[in-house]
């Protein structure tokens, strides 16, 4: 059957996919090394414009719906929905994507990485990241999530003859494949029990409705459905590096090029959380009694273990890796509460975290060019030689720690605290409070090194694209610090 496709609704990922094809052609026929980068940047900006247009229009478009005669008396169940949640997450992804592309321009200036392949793979991952929050059925979700994951293995390994990069790529590949297998198994169990792939229909069937005679109607407590939900949760926990599925993060972030580490820590993670939120709030609300406590325990373990591991790190990217594991815990925490405000709180934290973390990675990418070791001690006295870089990194670190003047991080934590307490999870709030204090130590210890009075090393030259990247992150974090309601009330 032919479906009419609402091209306006799917414009954001479509533009990115077409830009990916254009990048390959430009690289193959034009022969100018910088052209693919600008084409990629143009594609991301155009896609952002499409998201902005959809947001201004505010119609909440949906496409790829079930045709009338096949609905079986159920809802229309569209596979692709561009509602407010979709647009907010897409905007976060695309903002981070602009920074990643700008950092790539600096990274690729050395010429040891093929530009065409690099930007093609980046754009493919972005297309998946933008399609994922719009997905409303299991197949779309899994395909989009794989579209985010697959290019990243290659991106991590694209700097050839680099042992660490190869190791990072292999670890990421194995972890990701295993997690996908686990998630697919869980999804197939859910499909087997409910006979539906659309999220709202799964929710309806688990709550007792029936649209097809193919499967017997299960009660909400059907053990197979519970097993499926737990397996899906485990698969997503791998993707967002939640404890106990976190062990890959340190080595992978460290070995991959810094822009790829930034992509992993923000875009890939946001994709995982978007999928988690969609599945658990739209498809499995009937089983909240099963996954709610699990998510609470995961959140507490993730923030604690991530913070304790971050305490011991001497390498800048490894510290950011473990700290981003800890931040995953804060994002998970509100989801554990059965409250209506849970999703807005998680999404607000995700947006604020994306701005701050992209900024920190941008400055680290700049510093890594001249101080290849990238140890924390390489940042000692950075203030004396590169005051702007040092000030920017200091601001991002203070934000991540959640101290004034970095109000973005503070507000993010307050939103999550309020939500966790409102959800009746007092013990989780206490664990969070302790972890916030642990996080203070390593962020502030790093920020303190920047301003240490030592014999200054070489200055850190900032290339134009990297400078713009840091400026974008700085403006975003600054705006969120002054007007946190932009993120907090993004979902109403």
């Amino acid at each position, binding site marked *: 059957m*032919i479906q009419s496709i609402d091209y306006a609704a799917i414009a954001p990922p479509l533009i990115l996919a077409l830009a990916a094809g254009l990048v*390959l*052609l430009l690289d193959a026929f034009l022969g100018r090394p910088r052209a693919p980068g600008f084409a990629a940047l143009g594609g991301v900006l155009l896609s952002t414009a499409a998201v902005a247009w959809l947001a201004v229009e505010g119609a909440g478009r949906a496409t790829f719906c079930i045709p009338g005669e096949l609905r079986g008396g159920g809802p229309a169940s569209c596979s692709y929905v561009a509602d407010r949640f979709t647009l907010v997450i897409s905007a976060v992804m695309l903002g981070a994507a602009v920074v990643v592309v700008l950092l790539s321009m600096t990274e690729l200036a050395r010429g040891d990485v093929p530009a065409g392949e690099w930007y093609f793979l980046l754009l493919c991952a972005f297309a998946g990241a933008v399609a994922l929050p719009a997905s409303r059925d299991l197949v779309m979700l899994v395909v989009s999530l794989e579209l985010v994951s697959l290019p990243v293995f290659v991106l991590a390994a694209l700097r050839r003859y680099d042992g660490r990069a190869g190791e990072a790529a292999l670890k990421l590949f194995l972890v990701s494949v295993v997690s996908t297998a686990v998630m697919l198994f869980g999804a197939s169990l859910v499909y087997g029990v409910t006979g539906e792939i659309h999220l709202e229909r799964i929710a309806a069937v688990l709550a007792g409705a029936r649209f097809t005679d193919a499967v017997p109607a299960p009660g909400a407590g059907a053990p197979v459905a519970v097993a499926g939900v737990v397996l899906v949760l485990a698969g997503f926990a791998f993707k967002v590096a939640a404890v106990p599925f976190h062990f890959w993060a340190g080595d992978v972030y460290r070995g991959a090029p810094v822009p790829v580490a930034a992509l992993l820590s923000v875009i890939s993670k946001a994709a995982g959380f978007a999928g988690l939120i969609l599945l658990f709030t739209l498809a499995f609300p009937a089983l909240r009694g099963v996954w709610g406590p699990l998510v609470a325990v995961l959140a507490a373990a993730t923030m604690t273990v991530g913070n304790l591991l971050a305490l011991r790190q001497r390498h800048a990217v490894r510290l950011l890796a473990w700290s981003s594991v800890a931040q995953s815990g804060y994002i998970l925490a509100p989801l554990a509460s059965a409250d209506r405000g849970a999703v807005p709180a998680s999404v607000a934290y995700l947006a604020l975290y994306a701005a701050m973390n992209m900024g920190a990675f941008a400055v680290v990418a700049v510093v890594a060019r001249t101080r290849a070791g990238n140890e924390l001690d390489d940042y000692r006295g950075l203030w004396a030689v590169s005051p702007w870089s040092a000030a920017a990194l200091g601001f991002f670190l203070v934000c991540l720690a959640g101290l004034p003047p970095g109000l973005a991080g503070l507000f993010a934590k307050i939103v999550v605290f309020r939500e966790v307490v409102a959800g009746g999870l007092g013990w989780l709030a206490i664990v969070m409070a302790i972890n916030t204090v642990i996080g203070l130590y390593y962020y502030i210890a790093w920020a303190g090194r920047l301003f240490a009075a030592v014999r200054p090393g070489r200055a850190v030259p900032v290339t134009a694209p990297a400078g713009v990247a840091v400026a974008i992150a700085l403006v975003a974090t600054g705006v969120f610090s002054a007007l946190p309601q932009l993120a907090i009330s993004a979902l109403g």
Partner: protein
Amino acid sequence: MDGYFGSYAVVGALLLIGVGIFAGAMTANRLLRPHRPTPEKLLTYECGVDPVGEGWAQSHVRYYVFAYLYVVFAVDAVFLFPWATVFAAPGFGVATLVEMFVFLGFIALGIVYAWRKNVLGWT
């Protein structure tokens, strides 16, 4: 032979019968045949040609690209077959035809890129 586990009993019985037939045939063969081995008879049989070298052989890395491209096209061809059976059926129109060529265009893009990057040449 009723009930949930009864149906597994049928599978088990079939398995036993299968093993029995196979073992019986081989044992009968063993008992009836003469046994006079020569070195040639004990050699691995390979299409009538004497086996050469070890089982672990290296092939040139250049084959990798061609094998890879072959796999890509073999997998994509799978999508063509179901499409070919329905695109002329009522209810499907020009859009169905165009969609497949959009898909093929994206694959062709990969080949064009490989060609421009001199991946397809042998030397």
